[in-house]
């Protein structure tokens, strides 16, 4: 602390500099610069803020002290997913995105910021290979926004209002999409069957006024949609667009939706090289075919390759900049602003490191561990799988047979240092495994859950007439929670 106030972040608080600059502009004090701010609007007191830590070492002690109150998923065995996933982030990814040059740049031109343009063009290109589509945007905020925009694109293109929602969707995502699109679109829900789309039911609802069919795969419960091509064909028959929301993590082994008729593929890139960050590191992608009808509806920036004055040299720039709100204000498509570029660079580095074999190996380990976890948990007496679909990474278990409520299981296992999953209704729990979840971790969960079920079963057996969680009770399907409970 110094007197007068000099701060390392503000060089011209140095008294001599400040005085010299005031003199240079002929001002007696900084007050002069605020001549246009009416006196009655001027704050006549200091802001009422906590005492600061101007010495860096004190700031560090304070913030580290706060963060030390957190108990992370390194210390807790976590089976939490539901939108944020615990995948391994290679060190090179963090090294690259933490480079000052990338971290602190913004919206420079293709010349002095050639590296940023190339890195983001490469992100688009790498995602495009994974998704087998020709066009991918510079990331928007998150998968929620990407999906809302993708559906809006379908609405704007077609002028139709109906959207058929064919899959189970994360409640928060649905909340965001609904509020965002409601000016343009009406969402209609076609109940899923056994975790995936009811293709017949869907077909019966399709008509010429349908703008889009919206499929999520993996769905909110991790179920993979195996009949996408049929859905696409049915949608296309009535001139509707197939919008597929997805997580790209599985496409080293899974067929990309574009190869099964998807017109717009969208989702979140958090799985591709981003830490969990308490849910604070998401980015949204929207992929389409190289069709100007679709491309011109995209609000995000699209970086493209261009020639330069030097033959053979690659330059970069904005494709069809005049789509955007930068150029057109309210006449542009939605808007473009600071979104998630750095996360896009991260995802690009991730895919470059993983390569085709890495993504294949990863997809396989995810499928294998998911299947293993399903089997291990379903072997517990009273625990059943929520459906019979093929799952990637997430799946639900139904605990009603064991007389357990989902929230009770969460409470009980938290006491053992385990986050067993996210309740999706009274008796169903959404369990997530990744390549970070080892066989031993899964075995630990199933052992703890089995022990809990056994205890409860015994307790229930001793008090079966009065216990409301009686395993013999009929399972009642509860409404899907609109918000995560925390």
């Amino acid at each position, binding site marked *: 602390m110094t007197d007068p106030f000099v701060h390392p972040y503000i*060089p*011209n608080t140095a008294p001599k500099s400040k005085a010299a600059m005031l003199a240079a*502009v002929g001002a007696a004090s*900084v007050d002069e*610069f605020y*001549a*246009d701010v009416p006196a009655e*609007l001027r704050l006549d007191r200091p802001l009422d*803020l*906590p*005492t600061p830590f101007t010495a860096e070492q004190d700031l*560090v002690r304070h*913030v580290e002290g706060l*963060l030390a*109150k*957190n108990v992370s998923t390194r210390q*807790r065995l976590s089976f*939490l997913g539901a939108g944020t996933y615990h995948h391994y982030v290679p060190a090179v990814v963090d090294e690259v*995105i933490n480079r000052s*040059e*990338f*971290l*602190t*740049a*913004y*919206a*420079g031109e293709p*010349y002095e910021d050639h590296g940023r343009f190339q*890195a983001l*063009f490469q992100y688009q*290109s*790498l995602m*495009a290979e994974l998704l087998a589509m020709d066009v*991918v945007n510079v990331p928007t*905020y*998150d998968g929620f926004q990407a999906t809302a925009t993708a559906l809006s694109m379908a609405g704007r293109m077609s002028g139709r209002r109906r959207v058929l929602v064919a899959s189970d969707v994360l409640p*928060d995502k649905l909340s965001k999409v609904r509020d965002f699109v409601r000016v343009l679109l009406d969402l209609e829900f076609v109940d899923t069957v056994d975790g995936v789309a009811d293709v017949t039911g869907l077909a019966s609802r399709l008509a010429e006024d349908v703008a889009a069919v919206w499929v999520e795969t993996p769905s909110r419960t991790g179920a993979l949609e195996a009949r996408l091509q049929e859905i696409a064909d049915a949608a296309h028959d009535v001139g509707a667009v197939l919008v597929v929301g997805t997580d790209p993590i599985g496409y080293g*082994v899974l*067929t990309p939706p574009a190869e099964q008729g998807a017109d717009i593929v969208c989702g979140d890139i958090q799985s591709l090289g981003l830490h*969990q960050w*308490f849910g*604070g*590191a998401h980015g949204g992608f929207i992929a389409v075919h190289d069709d100007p009808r679709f*491309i011109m509806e995209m609000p995000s920036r699209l970086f493209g390759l*261009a020639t330069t*004055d030097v033959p053979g040299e690659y330059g970069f720039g904005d*494709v069809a900049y005049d789509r955007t709100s930068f150029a*057109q204000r309210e006449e542009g498509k*939605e*808007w473009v*602003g600071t979104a998630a570029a750095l*996360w896009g660079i991260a995802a690009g580095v991730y895919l470059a490191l993983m*390569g*085709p074999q890495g993504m294949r190996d990863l997809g396989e380990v995810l*499928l*294998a561990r998911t299947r293993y976890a399903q089997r291990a948990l379903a072997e517990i007496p009273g625990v059943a799988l929520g459906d019979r679909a093929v799952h990637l990474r997430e799946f639900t278990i139904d605990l009603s047979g064991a007389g357990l409520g989902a929230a009770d299981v969460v409470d009980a296992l938290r006491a053992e240092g385990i986050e067993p999953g*996210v309740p999706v209704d009274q008796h169903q729990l959404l369990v997530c495994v990744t390549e970070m979840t080892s066989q031993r971790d899964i075995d630990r969960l199933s052992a703890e859950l089995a022990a809990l079920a056994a205890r409860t079963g015994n307790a229930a057996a001793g008090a079966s007439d009065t216990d409301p969680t009686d395993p013999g009770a009929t399972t009642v399907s509860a409404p899907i929670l609109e*918000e*995560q409970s*925390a």
Partner: protein
Amino acid sequence: WDEPIIFELSTPGERGVLVTGIEPGVRDAVGDVVSELPAGLRRQAPPALPEMGQMRVLKHYLRLSQENLGADLNVDIGQGTCTMKYAPKVNEQLIRTPGLTAMHPLQDPADAQGVLEIVWQTERMLAEISGMDEVSLHTQGGSAAIWSNIAMIRAFHEANGEGEQRREVITTIFSHPSNAAAAKAAGYDVITLYPDADGYPDLEALKRALSPRTAAIMVTNPEDTGIYNPAIKEWVDAAHGVGALASYDQANANGILGITRARDAGFDVCHFNLHKTFGTPHACGGPGAGANGVSAALAPFLPGPRVAREGDRFVVREAGEQSIGAVAPFFGVIPNIVRAYSWMMALGAEGLRAVAEIAVLNNNYLMKKVLEIPGASAPYATGRRRIEQVRYSWQDLFEDTGVTSEEIGIRASDFGMHYWTSHHPYVVPQPFTLEPTESYSMAELDEYAAVLAEIAREARDDAETVRTAPHRQTVHHTHHDDLDDPERWAITWRAYQRKYFGDAAA
């Protein structure tokens, strides 16, 4: 560096990182899960990602990073409206702890007390800074925050039964374009007001535009010209007079921290950009972070979930009935929230006021230097001070030499500087907008002005050098017409290969 596109660096069989193996116990239990996938789910051809050793991937991206000009490397005052300030390195160190990166948002709140406290405290500090009653940190950028502003306004009017009636939003041409764009996306008709002859927002024009159809005014202040609207309270009052709400885009708040507050002028909702005013890095264009402040009347409409304090514990509450719901996953851009918290805690009330005052001093000092350059001008409010930035014009120089602002901006890159010219529509001709913030020393501002002066001299003496720039960059003048032609644009490598070489994607 003459660094190829990454696909050109692929060598079959190389690996960048290996994935953990499937345990024998898992393998035995589940068999070959890939070959057992149902028809249609199993990918046939592997994705044509590059195959590269780890060091080559690293080297490639490190070289690309060196071909980029971050705020840490240059005098980054040319992105006016963007508030390119110092993002302290200590904050980077603080956030990279597993105690933050390895937190899942659905963990037991008892295990998340540190991050929840930071979210809550950051909201409270921003409430004090804006004067608002409640603050939400959910939105992931400034434009997203503007969206939340209008979404809350829409919900408010609907809750009051005026949703159908109020179909118009009024903004000004020197407010950020996302105000207009987000209002449009929310279904409103947008009315854009132009300034008066002096460049001040035109109160009379506002009054003419207001009506019972008005849902809200959405304005930036100071506007992107750096001019503060002295009648801002009258604007708000006039909006309230017709039952409209007033929404304050505080993207340009850097010069008024601790000087004047949104709520004190009567605004109902406002937002800050944490990546502008509160020192989080701009990250090549995100993640940013927004903060939405609202009056008590609007508080029920805030997005959820909310972090609340109960005694000395912090809890998570689901959004209420009237909430616009989730606007993004979970709690917002956590790394930026922690950075912004740390930034404010490093400065305090006195420091934030010093930020504002020095940012404004720097701006007025720079304005004096720039206006000494023949050919440069600062349209509007001649002779008046500006707040934190100035939208300048090279119109005089253009008339003399034919050299455009865009060409000058590109030439500046040869001097390790740059500025951004996308200020559509060009109400100010040949525009450039400089915002020096509080982060640069007098010597650096002098250096920047000297570069502009030198280029202006070149424009007169050697215009060809300016027009054919850049001369000292890794790339040369790029043919942007490629990028507007659907036959030639190439948004991905696979599209480029297909269009230029007729390859099917490998």
